[in-house]
């Protein structure tokens, strides 16, 4: 039964059809699937499937990434209310777009994906000053600072990730947080992330979600 549900859910997500995706979820619950099963056996595998599709399917596209993340986040949010026990979250991320940048599509895709992957997300919004990324990461006890930038000067300039790294260094916080970046400029130069002092980047929002989850798990292993 579960394979049939996963297939139907994946097809709805692939067609960016939110209503159909929710219909699959509610039908599955009516057939006895628990909220936990929906999240861990349907939603998360669907995200992983979409990540695989990005490299496999030439027609995988931005609209699908966006809808996959949005649908997954909404389904997860609704399912979490129905969990028998409060779920253990993997970790926490503060995320925003760099100062001077109002492009928020990539950030939303990453956020949706992270929520579905059971990561706490603190959305700082757009046009975020570098100091605020660090202050909020400290205050919210996050593991990851994620800076999104769609324009070259906001990705590489003095008020973006580069300055966040500098503040972390100045305040002796480099061991405490990982800094990740995303956005179009990094796609055009895959080494650019290193030049701004980031620890990681991903080519798309869905892959970014997985990269962040892996990074948090790595940090937790190191701390043990």
């Amino acid at each position, binding site marked *: 039964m579960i394979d049939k549900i996963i297939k139907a859910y994946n097809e709805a997500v692939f067609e*960016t059809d*939110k209503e159909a995706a929710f219909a699959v979820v509610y039908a599955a619950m009516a057939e006895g699937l628990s909220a936990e099963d929906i999240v861990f056996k349907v939603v998360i595998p669907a995200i992983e499937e979409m990540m695989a599709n990005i490299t496999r399917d*030439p*027609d*995988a*596209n*931005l*609209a*699908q990434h*966006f*809808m996959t993340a*949005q649908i997954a986040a909404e389904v997860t949010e609704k399912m979490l209310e129905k969990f028998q026990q409060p779920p253990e979250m993997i970790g926490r991320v503060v995320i925003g777009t760099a100062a*001077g*940048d*109002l*492009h*928020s*599509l990539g*950030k*939303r895709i990453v956020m949706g994906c992270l929520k579905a992957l059971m990561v706490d997300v603190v959305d700082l919004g757009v*046009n975020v000053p570098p100091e605020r990324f660090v202050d909020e990461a400290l205050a919210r006890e996050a593991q990851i600072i994620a800076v999104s930038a769609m*324009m*070259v*000067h*906001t990705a*590489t*300039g*003095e008020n973006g990730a580069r300055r966040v790294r500098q503040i972390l260094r100045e305040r002796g916080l480099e061991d405490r947080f990982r800094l990740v970046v995303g956005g*179009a*400029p990094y*796609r*055009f*130069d895959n*080494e*650019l992330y290193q*030049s701004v002092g980031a620890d990681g980047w991903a080519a798309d929002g869905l892959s970014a979600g997985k990269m962040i989850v892996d990074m948090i798990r790595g940090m937790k292993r190191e701390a043990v």
Partner: protein
Amino acid sequence: MTPLEILLAAINGTPAPRIPIFCNLLDQGARELGMHQRDYYANGENVAAGQLKMRARLGYDNVWSLFYVGKEAEFFGCQNILYAEDGSPNVGEFVIKSWDDIATLEVPDDITAHPAWAETAKCMRILRAEVGATHPICAYITASSSLPALLMGMDKWMELLLTGPADLRDLLLAKCAEFFQKEVAAYRAAGANVLVYSTPFGSAYFVGRKRFESFSLPWMKRDLAPGGVGGIVYYCGMAPFNEVIAQVMDELDINIHYISPLANLAEAKRIIDARLPAKGGKGLTCGVIDDIKMIQWTAEETRAEVKRMCEMGKPNGHFLFGTGVMPMAIPEANIIAMLDAAFEYGAFS
């Protein structure tokens, strides 16, 4: 031959001494004139002076009438532009804050009478008088399917497009199409002869093939129907679009394509060249260098990439060398190396 004649020769496949060499230095104009961006862009005379001075000094073929991409939002009431000294000005506040704002969004009756056009008109008058007879004058015009991203933000537009009410989406698109038609007519009347049609949603990378056909194509047809495709350059905002080139040529009759640096240039050239006989021998592949990499490349690396692109594009002609976003952080030595190499490797012996 003048640069304008070289461009026409490349499109028509007739003899020319070299390929056309385009460069889009926009924000660098303020630096060229020693001005702050806000002051530079406040006066169309500055933009024209910056364009003419940079072109004369560096020797590439074209000039731009574009101030910054967000300027189109000013026609709809946007008054908040974020300036930066190290990059492009950006829309600072979206005019559509909620779906309710769509109903009241107004397209100016006569965009050439709108204050947002005044400085562009001033710039165009100077460019036309100075180089209009000899050099391509480029204008940048956003497609109806992509303009909403400037008016409400890309994520909100994507949300409306994919999950919102179809009648509201179509109302917004109809307004954007009306604006496009007026804007392209205004630029043509002012003397622009290279009309860069910015249509990211015209790439399957954005919306997939199915939605490209059911959504993007019909709206592009509507944009272009009244004025035709003369001078139109298909550009998907640096997104790859090789897989739809043939369809765009067949269904929209646009034969000049500005290829993403992320796409396979050789493949794009093959697709376009294969359709030239059906297009009366007219068509152009614009090879675009990955100029974000130029920030960190050496001059030698830059030259090598230009050489590679020219060797790929030059056989059979119908090829132009161009740039993408040309960030201000690119060292001038790399810009000079790029242009030197383009003239050297773009020459027909």
